[in-house]
């Protein structure tokens, strides 16, 4: 089972501010995630969920602690290594889709491949477009699409390079329940099909219950509450 661990975080600490203003965003957080797991993290606003995701995705650095991805230490690595890690191993999904307005649907999706100077798998692109139901709108620009469609593009962008780890920060926060169900379904299909690991931050209890394990955060402290 140990060998099956994809991401291991130990004793992560991250604080903001000083003195009385000091906030413990991560308070000695430890976490082990296995390949193919679907982890849900819930908690109140400001409890440190996004900070945890940023730190695990190497967008932010912890004050102390260690993060090992597939056995390799991430803390202390240089920007090039971390950027490559994000490009190849991580798929990010945000609450605000953050699509690039000047790129069309398929260009937005292949963006991580372009950045990695890697030719995209066109069959897989077609499959993803099919999966998100936007094959007919592959040449459209983000502003021509609805919020749900835009979020599905963001999903496809996170999946195009088949990353072993997907980090999703409240991906359904801006969507109605129908769209939410659809995108979660896409995500679950993808991780099942490609043995991907998903860490998902959500306030939606119905989504959280679909996870293998559920964690909750409170004042920077992470507790597993079930699965």
């Amino acid at each position: 089972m140990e060998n099956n661990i994809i991401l291991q975080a130990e004793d992560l600490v991250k604080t903001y501010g000083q003195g009385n203003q000091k906030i413990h965003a991560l308070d000695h957080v430890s976490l082990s995630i296995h390949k193919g797991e679907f982890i849900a993290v819930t908690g109140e606003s400001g409890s440190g969920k996004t900070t945890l995701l940023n730190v695990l995705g190497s967008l932010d650095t912890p004050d102390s602690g260690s993060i090992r991805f597939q056995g390799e230490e991430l803390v202390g690595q240089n920007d090039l290594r971390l950027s490559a890690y994000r490009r190849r191993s991580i798929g990010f999904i945000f609450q605000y889709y953050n699509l690039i307005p000047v790129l069309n649907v398929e260009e937005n999706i292949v963006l991580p491949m372009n950045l990695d100077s890697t030719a995209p798998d066109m069959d897989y692109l077609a499959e993803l477009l099919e999966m998100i139901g936007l094959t007919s709108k592959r040449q459209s620009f983000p502003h021509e699409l609805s919020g749900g469609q835009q979020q599905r593009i963001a999903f496809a962008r996170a999946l195009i390079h088949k990353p072993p780890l997907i980090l999703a920060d409240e991906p359904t926060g801006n969507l109605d329940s129908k769209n939410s169900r659809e995108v979660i379904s896409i995500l679950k299909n993808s991780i099942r099909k490609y043995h991907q690991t998903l860490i998902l931050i959500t306030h939606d209890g119905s989504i959280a219950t679909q996870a293998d394990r559920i964690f909750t955060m409170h004042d920077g402290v992470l507790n597993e509450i079930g699965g």
Partner: protein
Amino acid sequence: MRYLISLALKYIRRQKLRSVLTFSCLMLASFVLNTFSAYFSSGLQSSKNLLIEADDGFEWEIYLDDVIRAAVKNQTCTEEKAKDIIRNHPAVASYFFLQNWEMDAHVNMDPSVSQKDGISYWELRFDDNAPRRYQSIQASQLDSNVTFDQDSPYHITQSLADNAVFLPNSAKELGYQIGDSVTIYCTPVHCRINETMPEVRAVLEYIEKRNAEEEAKGSTTRYAISYFTPENGQKPSFSDNDRVIRRNMLQLLNEQYDLNTIAFADTEQGDTVSVTMTVAGFGNYEFNSMMYGFQTMDLFAGSQMAPFLEQLDEASKVFDVYSDSNESFFENRTRESQRAATVDHILFEDSLAMITESLGLDPMDYPEYFLGKNDMLLALKLKGADAIVTLIPVLWLFVFLLLIIWAISRFVIDNAFEISVQERSMQFAALRIMGASKRQLLALVFSEATAYSVTAIPLGALLAFLCCKLCFGLLAKSARSAFVFHLNPYIVCLCILLNITAIYISAYTSALYASRKLTPAEALHFGKPKKKRRNLLRKHRSKLTLNAKKFIRRYTWQNIQRTKRRFVISTIALSLGLLMLTFLLDFASIFYLESKLQKNAQAPGNAAHEAINKAIYHSDFEFFSSENNYALAVETFGDHPLFRAMYYTYTSSITVNESSLDQIHSLTPYAIADSDFPYLTVYGIDRTRYELEIQPYTGVDYDTFEAQDHGLIIYSEYDEKALYDASIHPNTVPDRYPLGYTAAKENATIEVWDDFAINPQQLQLTLDGSVCLPTASILEDGILLPIHMVSQFDQQSYATISLLASYHADYEELSPIVNEFASKTQMEYLDNYTFATGGMKAMLALAVGLGSFLFSLWLVGILSMINSIHTGILNRRSELSMLRAVGCSRKQMRRMIILEGILFSATATVIGAVLGAVAALCYLPEFVTDVKHCALLIPVAIVITVILLIAHLLIAALSAWPGIKAMEQFQSY
């Protein structure tokens, strides 16, 4: 409202970087506009001062001579009455009635034209002192309500009482003091110069002797004496020699004798006229007459001088019997100049009409054009429609320049505001949602604009005024005191008004965008491409197989297209600055290259002689004298710490006989003197010049050269005649002789006579050899001697002393030393030092002025570019965060931003450089000496464009830095 103002101020206070950028852009816009206002108003004032200076300090607008004459003619008033009316006229600000008399005596020495071979002069005596003879007497008198400064010659004339007179310094030596009474007696005299005068006979004897010598050696050259023996009935031959001798007869006499005491022949005197005046002062008012030998005297006198001079004119008329045709032996020239300036508070045209009417004339009969006007001054003072019309072409140019500057400022301000407001679209939308009215949003943006206006405009203006003050201060110090820093309140107000207008227009349009054109819903989705752009984007086909580099390039380009308006504005702002810079650089480079080409064309093989050229032709002070003042020059300047070098050259003229000439020509490859005209220049040079110019060729040091008492023949590497032929026949290549020394096979002894001496002496000179010198040398063909040997030649000679000041020397220190030497030796001198250092200072001042202006324009463009890039980054904050999240490295992000800056600056540089070159091409043909030289513009423009491009690419990379720093702050989304 108060809340909105405080909100605006909070934004300024808290968004420090944005506020600093906006403030900088607004301040620079103010700097540029006020630089124009300061330079334009200072330029106008300085031009006005220069015009006034050219008129010796009088600011006149109209001539009144014609209108007064017309009034006198029409008997509407007398001249005195007319002047009195003008003196007290309400439309006249200042008046200026100047009367100038010039009493000339003429000399005619050309008997071939007429028998008027007499000469005339004024014999002038102060009380019982010995008479002095003058060729011309001048006097002036002024009536004006203007106070002239000390430098103006009118100052002396104006300050005189009716019976006061300024006398020449020579009168001071007679014992006169200020306040003494002096009676001036003056008599017109006519006389002849002929053989009855022993002095003339001495000159003739010399000429006869020279002719006998010429005859003895078989030469056909004769010196004219027939002029002085007209009884032989023959006209003299008019060879060059004859003219020289005839024209110089009075001067030859002047050199040998005192013209004030010499007894001329056939002397006739007119009536003596006298006047008693009070001595008001003394001055250097006696001048040598260039042609005749007699002097000219200026008398600055009060009104009592007028009747005296009129009597003198009458007394001289008795000699008009000698004249034929229209010429007189004596001539009285009276000049009057009646001028005035009008008051500013009455319209110029009305002032003229009022003056004409007051003189009893109908203004309809004597319209504006009847009067002479100082149109340029009137135009500069913006007075008089006709005068202003003459300035319209120039004014248009300035209006055009002002419009360009305003456009740049407007672009920059607009860009700064648009960025500042658009950045907060979502905030504005939120305010709208919360119930803020459109008017309230406008008020908010206007509050910000006001806050910026009251801080940035004064600061920018202050900086501009300081730069301009510095520039004009330097110009005044180095060039002319007429250059003054001046702020015309109207021009300054206009520029500040334009500045405020630009700010409020930009604030208004940006606020409109934020409050009206963009609905809250649109604003909340800021960045949403408009419909037009959507169509444009559709044309692109998907490019999915890009590598990282290509992706970054494409993404950057698409981002620029997304903010096209901002890109265009920033590019225009930078391009306009670069256009002016390129225009100037192109012009300066072409002029430099042209001067190089001309220099090379003038002196073949010039490169080798550059050093000599520089060493010899550059002198800080250059003295000229007919006296040999070598000993005193060495004593004064020889070891003086403030002078680093002194070159002394004594030049005289000698004649050689034929056998000597043959010996000389055996040492030179071409004839340096004509056998029919065997004159040669003899140079005596000092150690410094010898060591610089001669020793490198002979290898003999000055001590040896001096001890031998021998001479050297010097000649040029190009025969002057051959060079002249080559200039006429372009296919002819002149022979070039090798530089260097050729020793004589045996010392050649030649016989020489010092030329033009009344008692010529025959001398013998031994020549060691000959030296071929570069064409650039100041020494031309002739004989070179050590300085001590030239004292034997004292006729038709002159000395030149060139002084080089020490590098640390200051003009204030040098001036008294040089002046003292000049007054001791009575030498005239050229002050190249003040001119050169002044020229340098003037150039520096101009460079500072022009440079600060161009720099500010350029800086405006660069700041606008930084602002645009930075804003682009802030606006794409979430987008860039996402790129980081999907694995874009910092290096890639930096590359993206730098690429954006490079695209900005490269586009601006190419546009600016090309337009600058085109503008230069339009004006160049007017200024180059040869139109063909315009072709040089192509390589010059290419080189300048490439240099500017490289420089701007580097600057673009540095300009992107604030954006990169800002981007790195939002690592996480």
